[in-house]
């Protein structure tokens, strides 16, 4: 017997968010392929936008799953999403231009089996368990592929494993200065796993509102994108990395101000306590 604790009342239905998140994420990932076609690296920032789209979808999936009270805490959902997603994503990068689609299909298969195991073998009996874990694995794979595309300008295995080191003016190929060889993927893993679980963990409760949580998800996504843009500086050209950084900071500032606005709207009352109180002499 399971009881659904909170109902989603009003707002955008989950299916709409799921379809929009999947399509937006895939379209943004394929826009980074313009790098290969046009021979530049300036389109890398679309990888970051793909992660934001997938993270917004993911935070709503976590809300969908965790409203049943799974008992293990919200962060565990983010961890299983990326644990299963990273495996699908790394295998899919072998398929070149088809990588994002292969990642989605493979992650769906892995997620489906994990969902079946959790729901039936472990006897969780939660109606949305299988669907949610399938979505989570897809989201994990798409977010990691987005970071890979943003940091290296491409989502193919060869460019994820090979970088360039300039020694005395000579450009030499190096496997250490790459997304995989430099273990940047470990940082991308945690950037995504924390960004996906934080919005629902922070916004849950009786006054949960959908637009506020999704705005926080976008804010977390852009905040992670700022870090990813800084990490992309050694791997892609500095001007392309600065374009990513610029887009990330603009997006973060916009979503952050909107989130504060929505938090004030939902709060019963708020007081702007200044960071450092002014001490008036002679009192």
């Amino acid at each position, binding site marked *: 017997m399971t009881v659904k604790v909170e109902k989603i009342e009003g707002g955008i239905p989950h299916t709409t968010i799921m379809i929009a998140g999947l399509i937006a994420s895939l379209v943004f990932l394929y826009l980074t392929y313009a790098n290969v076609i046009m021979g530049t690296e300036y389109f890398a920032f679309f990888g970051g936008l793909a992660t934001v789209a997938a993270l917004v979808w993911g935070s709503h999936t976590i809300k969908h799953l965790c409203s049943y*009270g799974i008992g293990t*805490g919200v962060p565990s959902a983010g961890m299983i999403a990326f644990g299963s997603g990273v495996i699908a994503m790394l295998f899919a990068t072998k398929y070149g231009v088809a990588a994002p689609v292969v990642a989605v299909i493979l992650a769906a298969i892995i997620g489906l089996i994990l969902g079946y195991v959790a729901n039936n073998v472990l006897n969780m009996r939660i109606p949305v368990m299988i669907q949610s874990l399938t979505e989570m694995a897809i989201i994990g794979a798409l977010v990691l592929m987005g970071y890979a595309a943003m940091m290296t300008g491409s989502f193919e295995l060869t460019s994820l494993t090979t970088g360039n080191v300039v020694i005395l003016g000579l450009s030499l190929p190096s*496997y250490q200065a790459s997304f995989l060889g430099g273990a940047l993927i470990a940082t991308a893993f945690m950037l995504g796993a924390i960004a996906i679980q934080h919005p629902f963990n922070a916004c849950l409760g009786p006054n949960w509102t959908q637009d506020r949580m999704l705005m926080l998800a976008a804010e977390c996504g852009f905040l992670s994108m700022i870090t990813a843009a800084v990490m992309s500086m050694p791997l892609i050209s500095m001007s392309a990395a600065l374009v990513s950084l610029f887009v990330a900071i603009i997006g973060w500032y916009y979503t952050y101000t909107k989130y504060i606005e929505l938090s004030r709207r939902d709060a019963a009352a708020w007081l702007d306590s200044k960071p450092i109180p002014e001490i008036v002499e002679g009192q």
Partner: protein
Amino acid sequence: MSAVAAKPTAGGAVDMTAMIIGLIILLVVIAATYFVFGSGLAFMALIGIIVGGILIGFGVHFVPVGGAPAAMGQAPGIATGVAMLAAGAGLAGLFGGAWAAEQGVVVATITGAIGGGLMMAITCMFVTFIYVFGMGIPCASGKVAKDPITGDTQAEFKSQGTEGHGLPFVSYVGGVIGGLFGGAGGTLIYLMLLDLYKEELPAMMNALPGQVLPIAVTLAGMFAIGMFLVNAVLAAYNITGTIEGPHDPKFKRFPRAIVASAVASAVCGIVAIMIVAV
């Protein structure tokens, strides 16, 4: 019904049909690996991954996970979720084992186990310090009348309206055993994948073995972390979030977790192997 009472009441029941379907998936994956790759390094890697995954899933059942009620002194255990504890113990073990990877599978796995066990021993000790001297609560179990190891009675130390509090001795020992299993399992997955990648990557990428070593280490490490988290969270679902340790009645649910971990590790493992072998 309030949010507190609405936790899933999965109970200890075993769904035999689902268990058999799970075992069939496991056998299909093992058979597929054997027929595609033969009985070489790839097949051994899959077996190692499955054994490692089972060790992780089984080990989580020993760890006293208290969650939010423990932080408020209303339930025994360490006051955080499985994902955090397992990541801590598993990664400590994995880092310990990775240092010893060149010494062979046995030495490295034992080193990983000691790393995970040490991490859990230190965590349990400081958790007890904070419970006893910081929060001012004695350690008492709510699930058993007497501590199975020391024989100390528990009931007179337990506050009314709680399920026990603090970290009883048996939970401490359980935490260390869980850390040993988790660290060993994570290290075993890492070692098996590292051996496979060191063997296959130079030919696949057309480079010298020394050049691809960073990539082999990262790939094996990421897959080990990914599989560790998947197995730990599945085991957490099995105990519905909290457990006191090996004396808890929920511990008897571990056969389900072993099947679940084996299936999940096999499915993730075959994909991790295919990245170099297809």
